[in-house]
């Protein structure tokens, strides 16, 4: 089963990976992104110590864009099922922000599709991250999709 979800609750990686498993597949590849403590400022190169993150989404469009990515991935790669779950709201350091699980009959396609999906998600799915430091906060701006 494919699925896309936005949730304000902690994400359990195991249950995401489990839900994409069909009986004919032998492997699932899962990308687990999480709130990291140290981030490098793109402009200054300075290492910043993050206290916590806040994620915000244009929710209905984000779900649509994730569904589009799954549809495209299933055309490009020989995969069976994809699950994408993205966390929203406040995340403590170390908490999982996104999980993408791909089940495929052959693991090579699962690796390739999972890597493609996270790359595309970061380009096209309308979700934004705010990094909060001891002395301020910044909405991170990504790279434009075109």
């Amino acid at each position, binding site marked *: 089963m494919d699925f896309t979800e936005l949730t304000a609750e902690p994400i359990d990686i195991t249950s995401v990976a489990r839900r994409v498993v069909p009986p004919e597949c032998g492997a699932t590849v899962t990308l687990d992104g999480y709130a990291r403590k140290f981030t490098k400022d793109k402009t200054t190169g300075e290492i910043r110590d993050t206290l916590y993150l806040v994620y915000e989404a*244009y929710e209905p469009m984000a779900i649509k864009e994730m569904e589009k990515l799954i549809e495209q991935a299933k055309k490009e790669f020989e995969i069976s099922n994809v699950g994408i779950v993205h966390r929203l709201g406040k995340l403590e350091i170390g908490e999982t922000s996104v999980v993408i699980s791909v089940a495929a009959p052959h693991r090579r396609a699962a690796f390739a599709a999972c890597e493609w999906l996270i790359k595309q998600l970061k380009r*096209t799915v309308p979700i934004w991250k705010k990094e909060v430091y001891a002395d301020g906060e910044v909405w991170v701006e*990504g790279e434009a999709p075109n």
Partner: protein
Amino acid sequence: MSLSLLFFGVTADIAGSRKSDVDVPDGESVEALLVRLISRYPKLASHKLLFAVNEEYVDIDTILKDGDEVAIFTAVSGG
């Protein structure tokens, strides 16, 4: 015609709201709306902005229709 505007992240901070309605002349393009928004919220000019109309990405030369939901945001940073 009437548009429903949505702001997220930086643009919501700059606009001071997440949602507002605006009346604009019929046949207004996204680009003309952008000019209008920048004159109202000058800080928007210092960001690269993206636009979605009714939950789909659009180019800046898209012509808007009455009742469109227009989202204005910076390049996404989820993941």
